[in-house]
């Protein structure tokens, strides 16, 4: 009986080994996706998070694939974040933790896509993103942000909402910054002192919780804001690297539409 059991085990092991997937067969080609909207990806990350650089590379790959149809925002939060108020300041803003706690995130990196995916691991982003991109949006957002030479310390933001249907929601505008050179741990726990952080959340334009808006079909709504550019010893924004993101979050938590624009420096009008 023992001999029979042993032979059966070897046979089963052999049979299973033959079903291995060869390296050449591990990828199935699928159809590309045509974007019908702009999708928001909130990436909850941290400078002491060793797995986060890999997630940043996932985002880079997705941005390369979908271009302006994807708006990523790196929100530094949690125990791996370094607060912006530290003696050696980091990239974690107080409201970053607020946004983090709304999703109940306590592992990093995690991403939330269009406010409705729940907290996903980076390997799950592509699938959910493909689904969201194909859902037509009933709202367009035109966004512009300029720094006037007259007021170099402020950003003037204009946001035009163009709904195709009646809708209500919370409009949120954020300031992002690219090209921030700051420390980051890599996957081996080594410190990279000059890591380049992109699409980092810096501040809320219209309040941490945004503002409620009610839109009527085919009626445009124009909103204007002013944001002070931070320039302190703990946090100094580089105007050329700033962007503004706007999105409308509906009652179910999902994002109806998102938009992003770079902050441009306007010309001084001659008197």
């Amino acid at each position, binding site marked *: *009986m*023992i001999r029979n*059991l*042993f032979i059966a*085990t070897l046979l*089963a*092991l052999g049979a*299973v*080994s033959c*079903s*291995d*997937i060869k*390296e050449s*067969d*591990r*990828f*199935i*080609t*699928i*159809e*590309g996706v045509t974007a019908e909207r702009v999708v928001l990806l909130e990436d909850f990350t941290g400078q*002491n*998070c*060793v*797995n986060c650089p*890999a997630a940043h*590379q*996932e*985002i*880079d*790959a*997705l941005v*390369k*694939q979908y271009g302006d149809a994807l708006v990523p925002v790196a929100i530094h939060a949690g125990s*791996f974040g370094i607060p912006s108020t530290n003696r050696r300041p980091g990239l974690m803003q107080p409201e970053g933790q607020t946004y983090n*706690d709304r999703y*109940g995130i*306590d*592992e990093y990196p995690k991403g939330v896509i269009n406010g409705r995916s729940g*907290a996903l*691991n*980076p*390997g*799950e*982003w*592509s*699938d959910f993103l*493909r689904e969201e991109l194909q859902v037509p949006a009933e709202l367009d957002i035109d966004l512009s942000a300029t720094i006037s030479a007259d007021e170099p310390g402020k950003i003037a933001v204009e946001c035009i909402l163009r709904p195709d249907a009646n809708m209500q929601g919370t409009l949120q505008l954020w300031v992002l910054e690219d090209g921030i050179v700051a420390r980051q*741990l890599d996957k081996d*726990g080594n410190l990279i002192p000059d890591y380049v952080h992109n699409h980092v959340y810096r501040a809320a334009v219209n309040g941490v919780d945004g503002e409620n808006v009610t839109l009527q079909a085919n009626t445009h709504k124009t909103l204007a804001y002013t944001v002070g550019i931070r320039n302190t010893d703990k946090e100094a924004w580089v105007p050329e690297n700033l962007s503004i993101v706007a999105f409308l979050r509906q009652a179910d938590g999902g994002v109806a539409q998102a938009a992003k624009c770079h902050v441009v420096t306007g010309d001084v009008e001659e008197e």
Partner: protein
Amino acid sequence: MKLSRKLLTGASVFALATVSAAAITIGGDNGVALHGSVQADVLFPQEDEAINTGKYEHDVLFNSYADLNLISRYVDAGARLEFMKWPLPGYEKDFDGWGVPHIYAKGRYKGFELTAGDFYEQFGSGFILRTYEERSLGIDNALRGGRLRVTAVPGLRLTALGGVQRHYWDWKTSSQVYGADAEVLLEQMFGKLRKHNISWMFGASYVLKRETTPGQTISGVDYRLNVPENVSAFDLRTHVRKGNFDIMGEFAWKGQDPSFDNDYTYGKGTAVMVSASWSKSGISALLQAKRSENMAFRSQRMMSGTSCFINNMPAFAYLHTYALPALYPYATQAAPGEWAFQGNFAYTFKRRTALGGRYGTKVKVNFSYIRGLDHKYPAPLFGSSLIGTDGSSTSFFGMGEAYYHDVNLQVEKKWSQSVSQNFMYMNQMYNKSVIEGEGGRIKTNVFVVDTKWKIDKRFTLRNELQYLHTCQDEGDWLFGLLELSVAPYLMATVSDMWNCGTSGTHYYNFGLTGNYRSNRLMVSYGRTREGFNCSGGVCRRIPATHGFQVSYSYTF
């Protein structure tokens, strides 16, 4: 929801279970018995900025359980009610909910036992299958389906099972687990072995995970990962006992299983463990070694955290019960793999000898030593990700960086009829970067003195003094505890854990515990440091808390 309504809801659930259990009077005369338990852990949290508790949405948080099991000669049945709508802090997001997630019926007749419903099972050491419940970690990965156990043939134990795995309040039917196990007890077949008092077991197991969810798409390209729908795992083991000697060996193998744990790579998993021990009155020794690689085995390949594991790699680090030695607990690295060694030696110096003293002295030495494997990584196919490759290659005996070591010496000494002491010294290295994701290597030296004074028949006073020294992380810690037991019902404790190294924060706690028959009630107030709660090599991060805690349990 107001505090009063929450309390009422929780208390109602709890009371219903208790009253139901008490009201049913089925006696042993009918061959039918009712057993069960009730457990409730409640926290009234207070926000405390000094220890970063964070903010709370609710005024009361609690986890509660009520088990009822009907036992008879041929049929058992049972169910468990769980209520954690507002759970204690630190559990995974999907943990909250309530319902009856565990229900079963079991029939047995002449060496055959059939279970339908929810059940727990382990094959061997758990390398390829271990489903269990560990409430403190929020783990319950029971299978829901069917299991047949056959012990009808002397010396042979057979098990076959199949089902879907619990993931908190969800049972995903697109992921199924099937398994078979056989154990042969040779001494029951061969008289010669019995004659020489040898006990010898051979075991073999097979587990199949079937997951029909398609593989995920790859970021940046229009490809989807081609993942195996069926993942197989095998286990072979043997265990020999003769006299004072006990030797065990086990080998496990897992097929291609691309998952979140291994970065969606296609390498196979292996585990091998050997263990030898020897003991007789007053002396014992144990040596164990284990090598595991890529053995994280889940029923859902994209899952992270502590849920959906089909298997469990046994812990190879000593489980400390004293507060400061347990400050940096090791979590088994199932996915990247590890080499782990563990041993202990215990000797009792006899009473009325020079070293034994009047009452004898027991000395124990334990060590754990764990290193990673020497991974050599292939060139990535997409960006820096290893997705789609065979993953890293390793040499069998090659070792990577040190993950953990712990050498501790314990001395138990009874000085008189009423006074006894335990002394412990521990030297530890904890690679926080590997185990927690950041923090470097923490080296500690820990000293513990635990003194018990039995004042009289009713009163016993116990005192613990602990000191942890380290130049890393939060620096030194001091811990003191005073515990007064009033037999047979009451125990009062007061303790403080003081971070004298850096923050100066005190984590104080005052507690009162009462036991009466099968009831146990504990009430405490104080602070708990943020840390890890570990059991069996699996750890859960617990946030810092401050507030009143009430724990009640009743077993019948």
